């Protein structure tokens, strides 16, 4: 076990994981329509290789990566390509090109989907990286950064540690927890494949201490492998953020606007490792993922193995439908997720959960003047001063906000959660950030 180095900020949150923690992962089934956005991930959108009316099978390539940072996209089930057209993208908040697939219900598997290797001795690191690219693997924690890019850091940035993020600090969500509990062996297998591909000698599995069963399951699975180690984190939001994890476990700090690889670390999510582990053994690309459908607003909070592109409405139906009047439907966790206005939107590769809050739960708090209590300052995991950043942002003082490092804020929401005056700190900070960035873009444009 690794002893923790330093942690700063964070808040104790009522995690509400009990709602769905007891529900085993179950297949969600095949909905009537799948919507697969060409940009599921961070980076350039992928380019379709199929045409409308084409028949495709489960695991068949639909779109190939374009450019250095991009990812492939595969058919989650067999069926017909109904359309390639713009659809409303819940995260980007605008119309984005998507491949619309009409499943035929037969769920025929593509011929190319064959097991790659039984164990890691029969596959080389380079082959793993190529395979990761081939199956369109992206980080399943939320940002959906293409994994293959992570595994090939520039030569001048030596990597010495690989962190497997099983902290799952977002309240409500239990998809990683269930994976670690039920599929610990596959997760560890996938993690070791990632280690081998990145040629990293040390791997640390990081789990928050509110998941003792997951900890023991993972401990059992990793015990044969001396290169793996375990770090148990105190459960405080947002301990599972990439930067916070690195600080807590290794005592290193990622420089502003830098990446984990700048301090010799790669971080991957439990779901990512699981998908890779399973893919090596079965050949199935990233076409499905575990999604928690939970919250007080659904009748039967569940953890589903859902096809990418499944509509949110279908999953909520599967979870027994709404209980009471829904007030808010959130894609992702309640701290950093995005609320959607329509249930027609599909889940993406990065969607870790769908949280439904009841109408009573989303009452609008009355905003009071800041009483300068400093709770937001104590809460900020980056040791920023949200009270000032927000005050500048509110008054439109962009330069001051920038000097107060508003651009460093990771929008974790800890400050706004704690604020007794219920001030929308993150909203203001986000506003300032986008205005500053827009200004910068305009300046760069003018210079060119």
């Amino acid at each position: 076990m690794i002893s923790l180095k330093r942690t700063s900020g964070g808040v104790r949150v009522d995690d509400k994981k009990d709602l769905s923690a007891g529900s085993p992962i179950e297949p969600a089934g095949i909905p009537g329509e799948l919507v697969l956005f060409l940009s599921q991930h961070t980076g350039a959108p992928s380019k379709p290789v199929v045409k409308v009316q084409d028949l495709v099978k489960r695991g068949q390539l639909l779109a190939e990566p374009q450019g250095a940072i991009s990812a492939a996209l595969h058919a989650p089930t067999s069926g017909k390509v109904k359309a390639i057209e713009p659809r409303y993208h819940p995260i980007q908040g605008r119309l984005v090109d998507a491949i619309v697939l009409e499943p035929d219900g037969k769920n025929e598997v593509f011929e190319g989907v064959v097991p790659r290797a039984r164990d890691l001795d029969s596959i080389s690191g380079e082959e793993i990286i190529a395979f990761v690219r081939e199956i369109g693997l992206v980080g399943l924690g939320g940002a959906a950064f293409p994994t293959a890019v992570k595994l090939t850091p520039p030569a001048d940035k030596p990597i010495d540690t690989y962190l497997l993020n099983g902290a799952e600090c977002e309240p409500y969500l239990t998809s990683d927890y269930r994976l670690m509990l039920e599929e610990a062996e596959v997760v560890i297998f996938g993690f070791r494949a990632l280690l081998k591909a990145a040629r990293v000698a040390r791997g640390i599995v990081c789990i928050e201490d509110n998941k003792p069963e997951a900890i023991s399951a993972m401990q059992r699975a990793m015990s044969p492998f001396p290169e793996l180690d375990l770090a148990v984190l105190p459960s405080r939001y947002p301990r599972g953020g990439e930067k916070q994890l690195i600080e807590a476990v290794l005592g290193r700090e990622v420089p502003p606007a830098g990446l984990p690889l700048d301090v010799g670390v790669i971080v991957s999510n439990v779901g990512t490792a699981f998908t890779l582990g399973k893919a090596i053994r079965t050949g199935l690309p990233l076409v499905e993922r575990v999604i928690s459908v939970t919250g007080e607003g659904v009748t039967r909070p569940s953890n589903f193995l859902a096809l990418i592109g499944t509509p949110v409405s279908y999953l909520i139906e599967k979870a027994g439908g709404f209980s009471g009047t829904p007030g808010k439907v959130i894609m992702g966790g309640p701290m950093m997720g995005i609320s959607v206005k329509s249930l027609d939107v599909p889940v993406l590769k990065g969607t870790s959960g769908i949280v439904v809050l009841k109408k009573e739960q989303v009452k609008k708090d009355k905003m009071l003047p800041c009483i300068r209590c400093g709770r937001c300052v104590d809460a900020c995991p980056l040791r920023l001063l949200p009270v000032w950043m927000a005050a500048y942002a509110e008054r439109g003082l962009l330069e001051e906000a920038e000097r107060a490092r508003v651009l460093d804020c990771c929008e974790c929401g800890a400050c706004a959660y704690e604020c007794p005056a219920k001030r929308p700190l993150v909203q203001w900070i986000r506003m300032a950030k986008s205005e500053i960035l827009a200004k910068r873009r305009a300046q760069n444009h003018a210079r060119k």
Partner: protein
Amino acid sequence: MEEKLVISSSPHIKGPKTVRGIMLDVIIALIPACLASLILFGWKALLIIMASVASAVASEALYEKAVKREVTVGDLSAVITGILLAMTLPPNVPLWIPVIGSAFAIVIAKQIFGGLGCNFVNPALAGRAFLLAAWPMHMTRDWLNPLTYDAVTSATPLAVLKGTGQGTLPGIKDFLLGVRLGSLGETSVLALLLGGIYLIARGVIDYRIPLGFLGTLFVGTLVFGKPGAFFQGDGVLAILAGGAILGAFFMATDYVTSPVTARGRLYMGIGAGFITLLIRLWGGYPEGVTYGILLMNLVTPLIDRFVVPRYYGYAHDRAAKEAAAGGR
């Protein structure tokens, strides 16, 4: 099935803490001291507290009505100001003293600057400072003997300590229970500590402010306590004899007028303790807690400007400091 869904910016859930809840905690923490004052000084104490609170709440409501702002007495902060001001008054003052003091505290020190969150000095202490300057005779002479309720004008323990008054010092036990001359709420150390510990345990106040305050006062008195003779002062007595405990736990910790960073709050506590020490040992007044805290209130924006944490990912304090200093 298509219901109206709320769209908003994350985070989508908020913590349970509210301004009102925090204020309520402070009021709860003040109850032991209020009860102690009732026992020690009788019905007079009750009247003073009631008059002070009523005046504070009424002035807040009236002022806000007058300038057509939303009436905010519901946040309970005016109640706290009223109680705190009453705590600092001698128990035998005429009742118009708390009424005027609270009105001054609320209208002049708080509302004129924009209400809760915008005042730059602690309203209760500003009210006390005004009263002290306006009617010094009442504020320094109107004592009641504890338990017997006799009006006396003799010297308080602090004045005795300072050598400006005649009298005998009570024993440590009497200090702890509060059986001595002094303001309404400052005498019973045990009751105050009870409330203070409650506030710290509930996470309402930061222990650093009282620690810095009382620590500085203790060590400073120990070292410089007797003129011309080092290490002959009585640090414990310095903490017990005046309003230091009331000030350190309930006045200096006022959010609005103390720094927002943990380190800043420690500095604020130390500063207030230091100024109190200066006034007590070398100044003209026997007691310096009020001005110690008020002066540190004024310095708070400066502390906030220069005492900033080392931001995540920045190698040295300096970069962050420059950023913060330039930012404001």
